[in-house]
């Protein structure tokens, strides 16, 4: 957990964030896709540092394993075989995970006070203790990142190793990357570094090489160097112009009272559900929404929203958030 004095924004909170800090430089992780060999050492380092483990899965006919992000796999390599205009094959390997948007849709969407925070250094972190598992962060994310755990109904994603960064260490994936394709530092330095890399790539014939730091979400604190920055969609559906969905913006804008009322109604309905059907097995955050019956109800009735959403990331994963 990072220093609470450095919190810039908290979800569903109207209190003023602390102002005592400053002089906190925004950080960024730069992933140079052109140098990534897809070795998955970052996946392993992530699991080790954060002490999370998926089940041993299956091979679905590709090199993607685990096949998707999960509550235990906060980063995965996505392998795409692309034949370019010259007929030459490119094997594009993108390390997928939270982009740590400057304008985070998840935080905007989150109804649980303080469950999602943004630190002054730009890291967007989940305080799982306060998560109600409603799934709004999934709706709010233009990159399809957060995953709700089946076990504890909490939402999980990459923390950019906020615990390591807060004590001056680089994220675990950065430390382990054998080819040095993941770098970490101040966002300004990483942009400078990216410019060097883009220049080199252009020299090697990738005329459209560039930095992926999309403005639609205010820029990101995880950035990519892409050989084909004009076609981010090639990289397993990286969205070209990600933005927070109008649905989520509305929820925090003029429609907020209505949405609050809906939450209240669903909470009430959930309470009735609890009275009639009794509690589920899993303990949940009773202080926010009362007993877990409500919460389950809430999830069932609000999670369908993303599917009707106009703004879908380029290729959503086959695995819906659980």
């Amino acid at each position, binding site marked *: 957990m990072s220093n609470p004095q450095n919190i810039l924004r908290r979800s569903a909170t109207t209190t003023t964030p602390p102002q005592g800090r400053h002089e906190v430089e925004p950080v960024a992780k730069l992933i140079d896709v052109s140098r990534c*060999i897809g070795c998955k050492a970052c996946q392993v380092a992530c699991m080790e540092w954060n002490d999370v*483990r998926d089940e041993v899965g299956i091979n679905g006919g590709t090199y993607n394993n685990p096949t998707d992000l999960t509550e235990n796999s906060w980063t995965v390599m996505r392998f795409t*075989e692309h034949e370019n205009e010259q007929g030459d094959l490119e094997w594009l390997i993108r390390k997928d995970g939270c982009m740590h948007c400057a304008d985070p849709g998840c935080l905007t969407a989150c109804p649980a006070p303080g469950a999602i925070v943004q630190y002054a250094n730009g890291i967007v972190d989940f305080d799982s203790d306060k998560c109600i598992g409603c799934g709004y962060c999934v709706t709010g994310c233009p990159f399809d990142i957060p995953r709700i755990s089946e076990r504890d109904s909490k939402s999980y994603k990459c923390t950019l190793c906020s615990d390591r960064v807060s004590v001056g260490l680089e994220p675990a994936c950065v430390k382990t990357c054998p080819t040095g394709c993941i770098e970490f530092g101040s966002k300004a330095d990483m942009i400078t570094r990216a410019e060097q890399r883009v220049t080199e790539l252009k020299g090697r014939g990738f005329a459209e090489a560039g930095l992926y730091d999309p403005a639609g979400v205010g820029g990101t604190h995880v950035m990519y160097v892409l050989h084909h920055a004009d076609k981010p969609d090639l990289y397993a559906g990286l969205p070209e112009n990600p933005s927070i969905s109008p649905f989520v913006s509305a929820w925090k804008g003029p429609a907020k009272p209505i949405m609050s009322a809906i939450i209240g109604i669903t909470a009430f309905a959930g309470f009735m559900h609890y009275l009639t059907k009794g509690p589920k097995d899993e303990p949940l955050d009773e202080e926010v929404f009362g007993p877990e019956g409500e919460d389950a109800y809430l999830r069932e009735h609000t999670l369908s929203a993303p599917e009707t959403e106009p703004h879908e990331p380029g290729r959503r994963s086959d695995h819906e958030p659980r």
Partner: protein
Amino acid sequence: MTNHWVDIRNADVILVMGGNAAEAHPVGFRWVTEAKEHNNAQLMVVDPRFTRTASVADFYAPIRTGTDIAFLGGLIRYLIDTDQIQREYVLNYTDAALLVDEGFGFEDGLFDNYDAESRSYDKEHWVYQTDEDGFALRDDTLENPRCVYRLLRAHFDAYTPDMVSSICGTPVDKIMRVWETLASTATPDRTTTLLYALGWTQHSLGSQIIRTAGMVQLLLGNIGLRGGGVNALRGHSNIQGLTDLGLLSNQLTGYIAAPVDDEQDLDTFLTARRRAPLQPGQVSYWQNADAFFVSLMKAWYGDNARAHNQWCYDWLPKLDKPLYDILDTFERMSKGEIYGYFCQGFNPLAAIPNKAKVSRSLAKLRYLVSIDPLNTETAEFWRNAGEYNDVDPSEIQTEVFRLPALSFAEDEGSTVNSARWLQWHYAAASGPGEARADTHILGALFTRVRELYARDGGAFPDPILGMAWNYKQPDEPSPEELAREYNGRAISDVYLDGQLVRRMGEQLAGFGELRDDGSTASGCWIFAGSWTEAGNQMANRDNADPYGIGQTLGWAWSWPANRRILYNRASAKLDGTPWSERKSLVWWDSVQRRWTGADIPDFPVDSAPTRGQMPFIMNPEGVGKLFASQGMAEGPFPTHYEPLESPVPEGNLLFPRNDKVRYNPAARVFAQDLEMMGTWEEYPYAATTYRLTEHFHYWTKHVHLNAIVQPEQFVEIGEALGNELGIKEGDWVRVSSKRGYIRAVAVVTKRIKAITVGDRIVHQVGIPIHWGFLGLARKGFLANTLTPFVGDANTQTPEFKSFLVNVEKDTSGGRT
């Protein structure tokens, strides 16, 4: 590696062929990345598959598995014909100008004096023409048709781009792009590094493929220079140490060839190893073989080894055949000729070709000992694991003992990496349960065997009872004691030219102090210098790089003599100045009158250029050998032959009329195994096996994290074959060879293309290893169920990389 990992960053062109460095050596691959970024290097990949390395390469060319000699042989022809060679280097630092014996010849795929019965050659004429002093004749105009250069060009005459393309299935334009890029480093200021691994080694022609690569680098003048070399990326963290210490049956330590049957007396043995110079005044360092050998005998047998008893030479076994290799061992085991078998850090059921034969052979043993940190399929070969190991335990009487060993992280000692660096490491944790260090297990075993011999006698107890075993705890020699012993010490005062150089009992400073009079002992001459009076050099951790070119001489210790780039005297011209400033490495300091520079000179340090000693100090010629003389089983020049199992109906397209040279005429194949070779009609697809970055051999399937990131066995087929057979991504397939079948998930990919060989479309099939019937990953088939029981003609390394299979959609229900 002739060079080292960090030095890759100095290359201008990097050719990865016969390996997949990004996949198998991701950490070392960092230096490829550095070369690209900081040296503007071009990365080229030639491989049957578009690999992870190819994914970050500047250029990729496909090739049919097992045809690398055709590709590289064509390159040699191209370099000569277009005069893109480093001429001054070739003339002076190779044997190009030396004249070859008139009796040497080559016709229709065979060298002269081939004996089909024994599948071997009479090598008598595979030598140079010599004068009355035994020195090779030379022609510096390179015009004499008998000079190596002309014979080399003639040998590869048929390897035209079109012919190479027909054999390899590589389009001509892609061949030319690779050749032209490599040729660009024939200039003295540019170098190519060649990175290879088991993709070159594991063929019936593996050694010759690697030789061809060495010849290319000699022609380009890229050996001994920074950013150059022929660089084997070794498959285990310490496999270099295995060969250094002579754990092959035909080796003593430090690459001293073991005695053979017709070397019954010491003088015969040593004469064959001294290697007199073939050009006047050359170093020919093997002339010191007596000192290496006598010091070894003193390390092994201590005071028992004396001049009057030929230093206990009679106690050494004399080989009655070239090699007691692993294929030979299992052949004999299959016939019931082996009583008991020790597997130390070895899982042969998984690691040897033709699992059915291995399994049958193990069942004929009375006992099997497995020394391993992990449970292995071999230790459980008798257990029925359903389809994955379908044996009947009631019919297997082999008694299996499992001796748990410490893993590398629980043990102290040195490992030798691909770059010949001996790096000392300390135990990170203590081992579990009853696990012991390998040295403890072997030490205890030895002392008990010795007790039995002492008590009961035996057929020949002398070598056991007479062995020097002066460890503080005889059943548990310490890593320090062993390392000091390998380095060597003075048994009595050592004098050089009348000067005392080393006092009795002191550790030797290097192999230059070894003596043939019994005054020194050294367990492995090339390791002399690793643990000196100054202490454990392998534990050095100073990464200072004074020249800024990645030469960190204070980091660990590299054999020989801490030299980091072999033959580095070749980085300078005849006059001792660097070929170019960009590639300067060592040079002659005319004021100090010695060789100096960023590396330890791999050369007599005070040998002035005017003296005419040449850089290749281990060769009797003093120069690099384009002509292998009698060193190789198949001939002095490499020739393309097909894999034992070839998908080409016409056989060897170079010699289509000669069925004798379809595959390597010197390959040793056991009769029963020959019957187990498939034909292209039954098994139409060319298959190759390989490793994945997520796993290490058959170990990491026991590790949860590795199992998560690569959980389940799969095979890779191209989209064209998938379409032909109606197989989609994620379907289950059955892959069979003449020797068995496996079932696995299909990865249908654009990365493996159907290629055209001659006038036939050939599909290639990729089969990752790593799965078995034990561990935390999903259960799978041992990939070596499929592979053929044949090895390289020189090393007998099995041909895991080229064989034939059939592929069918699996209808038996997929995942079990």
